[in-house]
């Protein structure tokens, strides 16, 4: 093989190649359909434009997906994030709506602290169910997913709580350094998680727990504690995302806030190349995945298709990305292309992937 061909192979088999390709294709298709798609203008010292909107709206999803990545890398899954978004948003809005002065910073921070505290408790509940009692994660978090919606409605008493608080609104719609504040919050969280996991041994420990929990325990890692921790982190991320969602619309709706966000988050993680089996995680891929999902949603809105029908496109993208990433599918495809059954092909790209990772 020539050198150029090798490099081409390396690029093609890089784990971020397909997510990036999909995102580029989506953006290109949008620009063709609507030439002004990528334009950004300055208005009142703030940047406006569709790309900025996509970044701002994807912030909650990025946050939830970050937590979800860590949970999935331990071989678990957290279905309760949507409910936790709803609960935390409801608690924060309830506290603010009862205050005399809704613009008071102290009130807003107390509200945030209360909601975060509850989220911590809910995350700890998930964590204990999975790590101490040893319930399968999908069911352990299903409990809170079902009951959580009820709790959120209990908090809001079935009403939609509307608030009129400047500081709280800023979480979702405020600006900082010409860009929406939400982008910075998501970016900050991403950098924090990336720094903590990739600059220290934490990431490797989490991956080792996901790879084989018992072996990690025997190697001296407190597996149960790590598993507990990721659920707490996931709940906290979900709570912050819940603040953004409720701040965006200045109201808390126990029924609809964060609805389906757990599914979107899991999708973002899977599109980003993290296997649901655990043992490995890619934060960059997750963020790309979240951006792809939000770009897709925005595209569909821009084309005047109803949000529900957007699910059709989402289904197509999910299947396409999963098929491309499935080793079995790649093996079948390359076998057909070469015309002869070559059993060594499926393992070759995977090896390369691991070297490059």
């Amino acid at each position: 093989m020539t050198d150029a061909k090798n490099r081409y192979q390396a690029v093609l088999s890089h784990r971020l190649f397909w997510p990036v390709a999909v995102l580029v294709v989506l953006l290109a298709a949008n620009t063709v359909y609507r030439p002004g798609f990528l334009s950004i203008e300055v208005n009142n010292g703030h940047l406006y434009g569709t790309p900025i909107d996509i970044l701002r709206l994807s912030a909650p999803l990025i946050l939830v997906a970050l937590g979800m990545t860590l949970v999935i890398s331990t071989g678990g899954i957290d279905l309760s994030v949507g409910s936790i978004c709803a609960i935390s948003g409801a608690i924060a809005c309830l506290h603010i709506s009862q205050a005399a002065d809704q613009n008071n910073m102290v009130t807003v921070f107390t509200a945030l602290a209360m909601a975060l505290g509850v989220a911590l408790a809910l995350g700890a509940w998930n964590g204990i169910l999975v790590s101490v009692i040893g319930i399968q994660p999908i069911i352990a978090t299903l409990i809170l997913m079902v009951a959580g919606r009820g709790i959120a409605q209990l908090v809001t008493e079935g009403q939609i709580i509307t608030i009129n608080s400047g500081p709280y609104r800023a979480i979702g719609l405020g600006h900082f350094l010409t860009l929406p504040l939400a982008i910075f919050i998501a970016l900050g969280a991403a950098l924090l998680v990336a720094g903590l996991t990739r600059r220290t041994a934490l990431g490797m420990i989490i991956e080792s727990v996901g790879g084989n929990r018992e072996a990690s325990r025997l190697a001296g890692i407190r597996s149960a504690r790590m598993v507990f921790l990721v659920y707490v982190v996931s709940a906290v991320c979900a709570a912050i995302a819940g603040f953004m969602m409720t701040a965006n619309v200045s109201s808390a709706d126990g029924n609809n806030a964060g609805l389906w966000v757990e599914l979107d988050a899991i999708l973002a993680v899977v599109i980003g190349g993290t296997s649901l089996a655990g043992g490995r995680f890619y934060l960059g891929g997750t963020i790309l995945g979240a951006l792809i999902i939000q770009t897709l949603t925005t595209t569909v809105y821009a084309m005047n298709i109803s949000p529900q029908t957007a699910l059709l496109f989402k289904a197509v993208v999910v299947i396409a990305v999963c098929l491309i990433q499935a080793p079995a599918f790649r093996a079948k495809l390359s076998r057909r292309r070469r015309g002869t059954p070559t059993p060594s092909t499926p393992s070759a790209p995977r090896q390369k992937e691991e070297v490059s990772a």
Partner: protein
Amino acid sequence: MTTTSLTAGPRWARLPRRHVPVLVTLALLLVMYAVGVSQYRAFSNVQVIFNVFIDNGFLLVVAVGMTFVILTGGIDLSVGSVVAMTAMVSAWLLQSGLPALLVLVIALLIGPTLGFLMGCAIHYFDIQPFIVTLAGMFFARGMCTFISDASIPITDGFWTTMSQYRIGDPRGNFVSISVLIVLAVVVVAAYVLAYTRLGRNVYAIGGNPQSALLMGLPVGRTRIAVYTISGLCSAIGGILLSFYTLSGAPLIGVGMELDVIAAVVIGGTVLTGGAGYIFGTVLGVLVLGVIQTLITFDGSLNSWWTKIVIGGLLFAFILFQRLIGIRYK
């Protein structure tokens, strides 16, 4: 899985361990019913029980399909959307003037086809059931609104007859035809699971897919079959729902998959597969139905209490299954 554990002790303790979860669900159901009867005078009316069947018939059919999938260790998130899609498609086709019988056939074919395709993707490409059926869920829900954003009423004669015909005794208690269909589905499913080759394969794959493969069982065919069965059950559920509501609404059945999974788990089926019964699932759905009835009878409790109670029950049952030693992975 543990088959029988004969320990010394009183006779009741020698029950096969795998029967215990179903018996506990049965006990819970009886206790809840007794509480209802003791609290509310009208609760002892036979019609209350019939209504539980009438109101939750479609849920029961879907839960039966889900039981097959969960017994193999898989999961099917698409059921709620497939139910909605089936109801939507039948309403739409009826509106455009197709004969009822043809509509029925078409509607009953869509669900299994989608299930078959999802099963193939899961088996041949080795993608997680969770993700594949999630995509199926998005697809089906998207199709609903693609057909129409608003709900479509059904005025067809056959549908209205099915909806309004009452089979009852002279004292006024009645069931709808749907309930008979539901019971037929349950009996067929229970027979298939307990006495046919397919049923044994389902249990074997759920217990240990590797061993099943090494034993020469048709793992792939069975796995595709269970998703097709689940699709068929969802389609039947969709038809029953359209009988019940006489319309197809794009947003009906949102979150239904969770109720269904909860019912199956409360019914004693283990989510990692290999253990569980259709009878348990029937009890699980009845428990959900009775909770709703109790909350309706009470009047002062709000509907969100249903969710909290279901969540609490899920927790209690999972904890209980762990305590008596049915193993979760």
